[in-house]
């Protein structure tokens, strides 16, 4: 508490007027058939003030039935979700600038760290005596989820016949579910305080079918059969205070494998994969040991669980005491490439147990600490197990990724919650520059739910780099001590009760961390934090040097010219320059104060290279060098900030021979990589020699060798005229891999040598890029590649060659160049008129692709590359460009890698030759695919390779597309933040932040309305409570399907067939019949009415029967007023519609809409005519069908009624609508 007093700022853990002490989560009715869950939560809340009247909780897409306090006071509640219609006051700007603002506004409206929430519980007067400071208040909530769109994923097979209700036994072996979410999204599956800062202890209970296992957080206390002996209840308790976002659940028929080294660790996988699980988790205990040793702290929890699930949202996600990982991380012992990815993922997940799960954060903006620390620890582990070179290369590529992102989009601010302390002078300037940085993004970085996933990904990398920079500043040992201190404090706090007030120690924040560093080391890192954490951007240095022979000095000039460019800022401080001279390596610390810094560095060596002397390197080795290429300068090469202690990009100008020396003799892999990158610009024979030397050098790190091979391709292509001898690298490859007796035949595969394995994969790939003077791939190379296929023999190998063969296919694809067609354009391409080489390539590809149908290889790597190669052949005119193949491979049910490859091809096709229906096929998948992970990756693919460039005319660029994407970001994807923000990325890529050019100007929009009346009909919603006053109706049933059939006649007579049915006892013929009737009509309308109607408030705010309350309950203050205004103004504007602007009509609409919003993802278009039918109630005929339903567990009888959606006059008075009872 004193901490907050010092900062005088409300943080995530203090902003709420109450604290959470304990929470019970009990899910009972988990149905895979219906994809539904019935549950109950009880939050034990300790009010911090006596006047607490309103509790704001988070809950999304849950249907709340009942809220009661201390078991017997029912509380009124209200539920709203602004993400259902982000830009509610603004229906036609389609401007991302406006959207960004509204998006942030919506996010803040429900942000628990803003003391807000979707679910507002009002404490009734009669229960007000329960509220007293420091006295626990129990808030129980009954809720259910039906067909959740996000947050929890049911992996069930897609049914061919919809009427099949029961899962077959074979299917039961595969079905499972798991929770997922983007950052803090637990609210999607249970009501909670969805903040990283609100920790409490947990009791978790899950009742599942007998053959299922429920894996969740904390200790499994017991498993008890239900009285009918058909189901089991798993009881978990989690005594370590944990925040809701770290709660998770996985249910499935898992195979259980207890780690043989650590019995506290349990692994779970789907049936049939146990052998892989054993291999995959073989060394996991080492990560535990490493972390415990490094942090000199015990693992904070008593157990750990790993669950491998299908269709995962991301590769891995760590939750308290458990992590949910993708099933595709599993591998057998014969696989090489996957091992590294998997081990790193598992190690990272474990590191996040310490920092991320056990230690949570005070604000979401402190996430960089947990991400940075856990990645840093994971990095140390990788360094230990994979080697220093791997580690340095990883850091280097991370740095480059961050630099690339920042230069493209803007500087990443790790902790935007607090501006950097302005320097004493020129504070205004600093402030404005900081503001400037923030404004640059097309999304708001002020909330987790508005940030672009690309930004988040880059910021994680940056967090890791900043943590590593800290390591350089204060030393690894001290940094680890800081971590240790955090953990020790947290461990101590965790063992205490909430009353101790120590739980705050379990939260980390930038300020706490800075102070901890100061306590441990005595160093004040505030400036560092301001510079790198609270300010975005990186430094960019440009170094030139001239040797002054007379004075034997080297004149170095370091410039920071680009400080005004995106993502780049000025750096002031020390900078290390390393000179490799003839007499050794010398370090010079330069002070950077200005944009241009000049410095004369005296050379140590009295440049005499004729003396045959060995040259000492920075590692202490002494080597012989051929110095003939040098001129009179004694400097062999120059490096800037060699240890990557800054976030920077560096451009060094030095002559090519210096780069060559650097490549050949510098021992640091990052220097070698930089040299290779630089040498691309110098296609000369010495460069060729240096690169060849590197590829052949067995002492060299394999990734450097692989990069050298790719660079040699470029060099060879640049010097094609003067290239002598066989194609580049052919000799090297034969030397390494040619068999002894016949060098042109490759040896039988033996991947025991790891370096050679990678070279064997990379060299053919690099060679495939070689082009002769005609710009085509030399026939020698193609023959060489085909021979590699022919003679490939893996019979004696102990490892699988699937990645190698995939690399060969990729290489084959890379040899393809645009067709030189003698045939006139327009003649169809047939198999006969292919060139011989294309025929050979195609034959190889088709054979391999066909073979995979019968004998699939690991992860279908071959199919993936074959599809890409076919797309290349299409793209370059060798094959007719057709999307059909890719469409069939992109369907649900194929392996995800294959699907993604097919989608990549498809997106590429759409860009080149696609028609609107192809694009719409892709967007359909994006919106409706069952696999949430795929949707995200697909969107990333589209963003990377957009169908058209901003500002360029394209036939795909039409208003319907704008509306479609807009509809999604505006409300269609309220349940999946990541995908919504992905689509914002896409929208930005296609249209920028301005109004899309293909849309008519706003002034003309009125004209448009005449032709497209329905676009303007979208109205904002007004909160409305469906009020049930019949005691028999316990709750409004969730209706999975609402069919609205609209027949529009010219006289605007509307017949609405409002049919609600529930799958349990649904009348099947009716449903299908209706669907058939309905779909063509709606499809036809889709094209000109692309905007689904979105409501602000949902139908879930159902009050309790028997409470007898009348009138509205608890609006968001001011919300109602605003909305009414907005509605009336907008409706007034469109004078031809909505003449009946009375609030009563709107109430009616609202009721109807509420019912439907839930299902709009399925039937987005069904809301379109809502208003229309209200216009003339006399002409509206409404058929109602209600069905009595009962849940499988027959817990409650649920009465269905469409009464609340009937626009009967008495619903005009808000909140008093009576629902006819259908027993």
């Amino acid at each position, binding site marked *: 508490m004193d901490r907050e007093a010092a900062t005088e700022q409300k943080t995530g853990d203090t902003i709420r007027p109450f604290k959470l002490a304990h929470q019970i989560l009990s899910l009972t009715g988990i149905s895979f058939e219906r994809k539904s869950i019935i549950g109950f939560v009880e939050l034990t809340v300790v009010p911090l003030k006596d006047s607490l009247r309103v509790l704001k909780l988070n809950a999304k897409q849950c249907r709340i039935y009942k809220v009661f306090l201390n078991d017997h006071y029912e509380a009124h509640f209200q539920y709203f979700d602004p993400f259902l219609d982000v830009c509610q006051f603004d229906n036609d700007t389609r401007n991302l600038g406006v959207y960004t603002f509204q998006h942030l506004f919506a996010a803040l409206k429900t942000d628990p760290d803003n003391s807000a929430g979707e679910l507002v519980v009002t404490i009734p007067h009669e229960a007000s005596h329960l509220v007293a400071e420091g006295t626990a208040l129990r808030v129980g909530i009954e809720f259910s989820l039906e067909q959740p769109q996000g947050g929890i994923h049911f992996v069930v097979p897609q049914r061919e016949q919809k009427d099949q209700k029961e899962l077959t036994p074979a299917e039961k072996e595969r079905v499972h579910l798991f929770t997922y979410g983007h950052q803090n999204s637990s609210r999607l599956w249970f009501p909670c305080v969805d903040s990283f800062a609100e920790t409490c202890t947990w009791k978790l209970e899950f009742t599942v079918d007998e053959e299922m296992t429920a894996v969740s957080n904390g200790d499994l206390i017991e498993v008890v059969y239900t009285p009918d002996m058909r189901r089991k209840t798993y009881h978990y308790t989690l005594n370590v205070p944990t925040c809701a976002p770290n709660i998770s659940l996985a249910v499935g028929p898992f195979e259980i494998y207890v780690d043989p080294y650590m019995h506290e660790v349990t692994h779970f996988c789907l049936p*049939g994969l146990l052998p892989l699980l054993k291999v995959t988790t073989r060394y996991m205990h080492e990560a535990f040991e490493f972390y415990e040793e490094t942090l000199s702290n015990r693992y904070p929890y008593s157990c750990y669980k790993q669950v491998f699930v299908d269709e995962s949202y991301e590769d891995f996600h760590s939750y308290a005491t458990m992590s949910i990982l993708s099933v595709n991380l599993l591998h057998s012992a014969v696989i090489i490439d996957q091992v590294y990815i998997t081990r790193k993922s598992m190690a990272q997940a474990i590191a996040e147990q310490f920092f991320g799960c056990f230690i949570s954060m005070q604000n979401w903006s402190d996430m960089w600490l947990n991400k940075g620390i856990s990645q840093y620890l994971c990095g140390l582990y990788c360094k230990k197990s994979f080697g220093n070179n791997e580690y340095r290369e990883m850091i280097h590529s991370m740095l480059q990724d961050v630099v690339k992102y920042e230069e493209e989009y803007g500087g990443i601010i790790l902790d935007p919650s607090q501006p950097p302390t302005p320097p004493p002078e020129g504070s205004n300037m600093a402030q404005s520059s900081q503001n400037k940085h923030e404004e640059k993004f097309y999304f708001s970085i002020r909330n987790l739910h508005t940030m672009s996933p690309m930004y988040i990904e880059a910021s994680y990398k940056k967090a890791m780099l900043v943590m590593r920079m800290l390591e350089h500043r204060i030393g690894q040992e001290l940094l680890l001590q800081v971590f240790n201190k955090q953990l020790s404090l947290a461990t101590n706090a965790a063992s205490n009760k909430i009353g101790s007030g120590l739980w705050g120690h379990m939260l980390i924040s930038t300020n706490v961390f800075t102070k901890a560093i100061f306590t441990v080391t005595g160093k004040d890192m505030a400036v560092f934090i301001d510079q790198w954490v609270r300010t975005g951007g990186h430094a960019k240095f440009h170094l030139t040097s001239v040797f002054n022979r007379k004075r034997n000095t080297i004149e170095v000039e370091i410039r920071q010219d680009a400080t005004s460019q995106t993502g780049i800022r000025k750096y002031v401080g020390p900078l290390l320059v390393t000179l490799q001279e003839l007499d050794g390596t010398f370090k010079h610390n330069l002070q950077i104060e200005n944009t241009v810094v000049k410095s004369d560095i005296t050379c140590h060596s009295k440049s005499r290279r004729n003396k045959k002397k060995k040259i000492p390197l920075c590692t202490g080795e002494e080597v012989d060098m051929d110095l003939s290429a040098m001129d009179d300068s004694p400097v062999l090469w120059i490096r800037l900030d060699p240890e990557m202690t800054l976030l920077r990009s560096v451009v060094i100008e030095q002559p090519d021979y210096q780069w060559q020396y650097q490549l050949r003799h510098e021992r640091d892999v990052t220097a070698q990589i930089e040299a290779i990158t630089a040498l691309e610009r110098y296609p000369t024979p010495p460069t060729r020699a240096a690169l060849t030397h590197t590829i052949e050098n067995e002492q060299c790190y394999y990734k450097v060798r692989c990069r050298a091979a790719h660079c040699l391709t470029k060099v060879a292509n640049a010097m094609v005229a003067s290239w002598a001898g066989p194609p580049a690298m052919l000799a090297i490859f034969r030397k390494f891999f040619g068999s002894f007796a016949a060098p042109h035949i490759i040896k039988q595969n033996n991947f025991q040598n790891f370096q050679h394995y990678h070279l064997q994969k990379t060299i053919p790939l690099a060679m495939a890029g070689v082009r002769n003077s005609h710009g085509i791939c030399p026939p020698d190379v193609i023959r060489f590649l085909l021979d590699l296929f022919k003679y490939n023999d893996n019979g004696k190998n102990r490892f699988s060659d699937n990645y190698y063969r995939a690399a060969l296919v990729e290489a084959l694809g890379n040899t393809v160049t645009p067709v030189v067609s003698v045939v006139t354009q327009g003649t169809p391409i047939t198999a006969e008129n292919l060139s011989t080489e294309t025929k050979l390539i195609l034959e190889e590809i*088709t054979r391999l692709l066909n073979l995979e149908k019968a004998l699939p290889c690991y992860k279908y790597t071959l199919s993936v590359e074959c599809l890409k190669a076919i797309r290349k052949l299409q793209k370059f005119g060798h094959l007719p460009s057709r999307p059909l193949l890719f469409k069939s491979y992109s369907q649900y049910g194929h392996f995800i890698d294959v699907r993604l490859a097919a989608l990549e091809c498809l997106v590429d096709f759409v860009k080149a030759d696609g028609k609107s229906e192809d694009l719409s096929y892709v967007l359909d998948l994006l919106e409706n695919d069952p696999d949430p992970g795929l949707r995200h990756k697909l969107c990333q693919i589209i963003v990377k390779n957009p169908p058209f460039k901003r500002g360029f005319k394209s036939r795909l660029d039409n208003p319907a597309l704008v509306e479609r994407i807009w509809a999604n970001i505006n409300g269609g994807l309220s349940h999946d933040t990541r995908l919504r923000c992905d689509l914002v990325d896409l929208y930005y890529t296609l249209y920028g932040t301005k109004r899309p050019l293909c849309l008519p100007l706003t002034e003309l929009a009125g004209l448009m309305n005449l032709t497209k009346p329905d676009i303007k009909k979208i109205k904002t919603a007004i909160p409305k409570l469906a009020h049930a006053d019949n005691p028999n109706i316990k709750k409004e049933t969730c209706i999975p399907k609402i069919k609205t059939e609209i027949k529009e006649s010219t006289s605007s007579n509307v017949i609405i067939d409002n049919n609600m049915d529930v799958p349990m006892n649904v009348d099947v013929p009716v449903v299908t019949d209706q669907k058939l009737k309905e779909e063509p009509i709606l499809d036809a309308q889709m094209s000109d009415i692309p905007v689904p109607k979105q409501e602000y408030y949902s139908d879930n705010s159902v009050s309790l029967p028997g409470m007898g309350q009348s009138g509205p309950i608890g609006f968001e203050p001011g919300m109602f007023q605003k909305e009414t205004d907005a509605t009336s103004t907008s409706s007034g504007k469109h004078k031809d519609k909505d003449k009946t602007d009375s609030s009563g009509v709107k109430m009616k609409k609202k009721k109807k809409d509420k019912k439907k919003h839930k299902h709009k993802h399925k039937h987005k278009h069904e809301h379109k005519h809502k208003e229309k039918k209200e216009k003339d109630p006399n002409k509206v005929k409404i058929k109602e069908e209600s069905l009595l339903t009962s849940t499988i567990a027959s817990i409650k009888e649920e009465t269905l009624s469409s009464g609340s959606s009937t626009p009967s006059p008495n619903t005009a008075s808000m909140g008093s609508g009576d629902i006819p009872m259908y027993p």
Partner: protein
Amino acid sequence: MDSQTSPYRKMVAMSVSSVLKEVGFDSSEREALGTLTEMMQAFLCEIGLLSKNYCELSGRSDPLIADVILGFVEMGFDFSSLEGYAKFGKHMVLPPLQSQQSQKQLSMLSAGAKQALPSYVPQHFPQFPDPHAYVRTPTHKQPIIDYESVREKAAVQKKDIEKALTKFLAKTSSTHNLFDTEEGNIFPLIAAKPSYPPYLSALLPQDQIFDPEDLDSDPKSLIIQQQKEHKEAQNAKEEQQQEEAMEEGEQNLNDSVKTDDSTQNNGFIDNPYLAATKMPAKDHIDVC
């Protein structure tokens, strides 16, 4: 003359002809000459046979002139003019018996190199038959075992198998055509069919078959094992060398080895997921 006739008979025929020429014939009919030759041969054989018999009768192995005379007598042949004929007639000298013109064996049947005649066998004797006739008969060609062709062959074979399989599969299932025209689909692609669950076939590949030990191999534990063995061996050595001095150190090392083993061999695992499911309590009411 038939080439098949024996050289002896040829010689007899030649001598008959020379006698005929001596007598004054210029030519003779083939049949007549044949008859004369036959008679001559029969006569010579008869006389030879009788001479041999008489010589054997006298207990000798080689006939003498007396035996021949007795033979003539036995045959009733007056040989008194023979001496005069031999001494005074001017006779043609027949060429010596020509070394057998080697009759070429038909090459189609030859197998292996024929063995040359040993030195003690006159050159006109027939050659040895083919070695397979009396040594052995190779029933197959020696395999070609040079690396290149072996690899070539294996590669071709593998490709053929794969081709045949994919062709078969493509013929028996629905296919996808990369081209617009239907005819001449020489590159049919088997249509993709979703499998359920998709991950299973991807994670349990079937393209290669590995030894179970490869699938279960654990290179790291092997290395550790080796190191341990190495260490133990060293320890043993040390033990021998400094048995008394290093007693304490030994103790520690042994301990560490023991603890390593104990983690592995612990039979009972205390893990809640392995525990049995409890029966519902009678009075326990489930929370819905």
